[in-house]
């Protein structure tokens, strides 16, 4: 579910839906950790932890060897380094521009009238050769794509160029924290095979990809909640 304009309201909705699917009541959940952009606005959370710590935690539980994590969602992109316990040791995040984030893929998919989930696959089926998309800014890249379309370039070649450009930018972010051999990708971008493959080629590594990459952060938050609950029981703190 997309967050939308009202984080508190979407949090309530997700919770209601999840509870009814699981056949549980809110009162029976003993500890809740919120994460992500709206983490401060989740009314029923006991604690909030950033998605950076939660992603490291989540990936660590899935791939215990992973030490470098890429998380790319709609809003932003993060390169994270963690230790064997899943604790963050360093991270870098793109500055306030959407160019290095998943949103750019969404914008381009809409512009090209190609379903978002097909973008990765189509980028691998180039007709002539990948276009060069030289502009970083999403707004300007849109005009670059439009002029490519007008000059008759095949959509697949344009998509290949977009995936190239995105993986290039992500690589620069990863280099800021340093990449170790055991490398995992989380967030929506993990579903884009075009970006994933290009990144793997550039790094000369195979990435660990979570089965449900978009909920790795939530998994981490749940694991934190479990540990926090255990600690509070041990310390006799009433929650």
């Amino acid at each position, binding site marked *: 579910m997309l967050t939308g304009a009202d984080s508190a309201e979407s949090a309530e909705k997700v919770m209601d839906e999840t509870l009814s699917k699981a056949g549980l009541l809110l009162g029976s959940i003993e500890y809740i950790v919120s994460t992500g*952009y709206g983490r*401060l606005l989740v009314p029923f959370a006991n604690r909030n*932890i*950033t*998605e*950076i*710590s939660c992603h490291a935690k989540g990936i660590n539980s899935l791939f215990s060897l992973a030490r470098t994590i890429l998380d790319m969602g709609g*809003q*932003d992109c993060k390169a994270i380094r963690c230790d064997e316990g899943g*604790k*963050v*040791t*360093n*991270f870098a*995040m793109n*500055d*306030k521009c959407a160019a290095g984030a998943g949103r750019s893929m969404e914008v381009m998919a809409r512009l090209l009238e190609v379903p978002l989930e097909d973008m990765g696959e189509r980028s691998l089926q180039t007709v002539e050769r990948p276009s060069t998309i030289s502009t970083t800014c999403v707004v300007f890249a849109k005009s670059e794509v439009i002029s490519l379309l007008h000059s008759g370039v095949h959509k697949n070649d344009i998509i290949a160029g977009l995936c190239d450009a995105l993986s290039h930018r992500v690589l620069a972010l990863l280099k800021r924290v340093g990449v170790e051999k055991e490398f995992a990708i989380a967030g929506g971008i993990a579903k884009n095979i075009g970006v994933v493959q290009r990144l793997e080629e550039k790094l000369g590594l195979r990435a660990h990809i979570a089965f449900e990459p978009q909920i790795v952060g939530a998994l981490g938050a749940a694991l*934190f909640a479990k*540990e*926090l609950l255990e*600690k509070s029981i041990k310390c006799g703190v009433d929650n």
Partner: protein
Amino acid sequence: MKQMKDKRYAPELSPQDVQSIRETVGSASLKLMSESIDKMKAMPNRAQGMAYFDEAANLFSKRQDEIQAHKDAGGRVIGTFCTFVPVELIYAAGAIPVRLDSGIYHTVDIGEEILPNEVCPVVKSSLGTKIVQSSPYFELCDATISPSTCDAKTKLGEILEDYLPVWMIDLPRGRDTAQSKGFWVAEVFELKKRIEKFCGQKISRKSLKSAIELVSQAQKAFCRLHDARKASMPVIMGRDAMLAIQALFNDDIERWTRKTEELCNELDEHIAMKRKGYDAEMPRMMLAGSPIIWPNWKVPNIVEEAGAIIVCDELCSGVRGLYDPVRVDEWTMDDMLTAVAERYLLPSTCPCFTPNDNRANRLLQMVEDFKVQGVIYHILRGCHTYSIEFMRIKRVLERSNIPIHRIETDYSQEDTGQIKTRIQAFLEMVKESII
């Protein structure tokens, strides 16, 4: 007043336009200041001595009436930028210095009408403030002294000549050679003559000596405040200390010194009585990088609201301006002037100098003295010299296992959510355990 056709940069604005923008900027700035003051007041166990600085830091406070009275009695007011203007000379000539670097958000757009997009917000805001006459202190200035530090500041001085007399003081790019020192000392000797002529008052040996003492008293008070932040049980939030320090931009220096001493007495009592101040578990942060000028409290507010405490900074808007004392050997005029000149040049770690080897060592020393657990490196967009040196500082700190996180931002609010996430994640990383 020069005719508009003589203006080289100034935009053509009617007095009505200026007035209406000034009113909008004024009320927005007042709101911005009071929001931050309210946040700071909401912290528990805040020192009572801070009440004075809450008022003194108000950029529209009664202090302007005092300065006006000084002017009415024939006194001069001289504006300064950066931390290189020897204010001792201004005091010695019976004039009042005010620092004009601006942290006001709402004049950035106005400065942008003249300046290219890539220029930092401090320069845009400072210029915008002059264009719409929104800072009472700037308006009270009879002249301003503009050191040639970074490129943007250097050209700012030139642009401001459309509005008031500006005296450039030329800083050497190098700092450590005998030629550079000689060049700078000569600049300060020249500046003395200009100030004397402008103020119509000779700077005597006696008046310079007492001006040096006046400033050194303020520096001593500042150093006490600085030291109080070393306490392992914190007694003052970083934002409070920063506000108190920056109140001196406009305040009467003797009163500021007295009020800072009073504040320090209160803090020392808290330390001595081991009175519970703030949570000793708060991660201890240092702010490094581009200046953070009141009321641009965006980053400090985020850091301390996320549960950390800023225990020190290396900012030219903070610690760097007041830390290093003037060292006089002989109280002759030449020796005093040389000593004043040297105090501004030699210890400076401003990245507009090259080489700038001392900066990293100073940071490491501060990390040790203040038991800093993490460094937040603040870069204002367009502030190239700080941005460039980040890589070097990062290497040095990481070699000593000090976590550092880079935040690049400006005076707009659109990235507040993202910065909150980054700072909170950095604090989660710095803490031994999140659980």
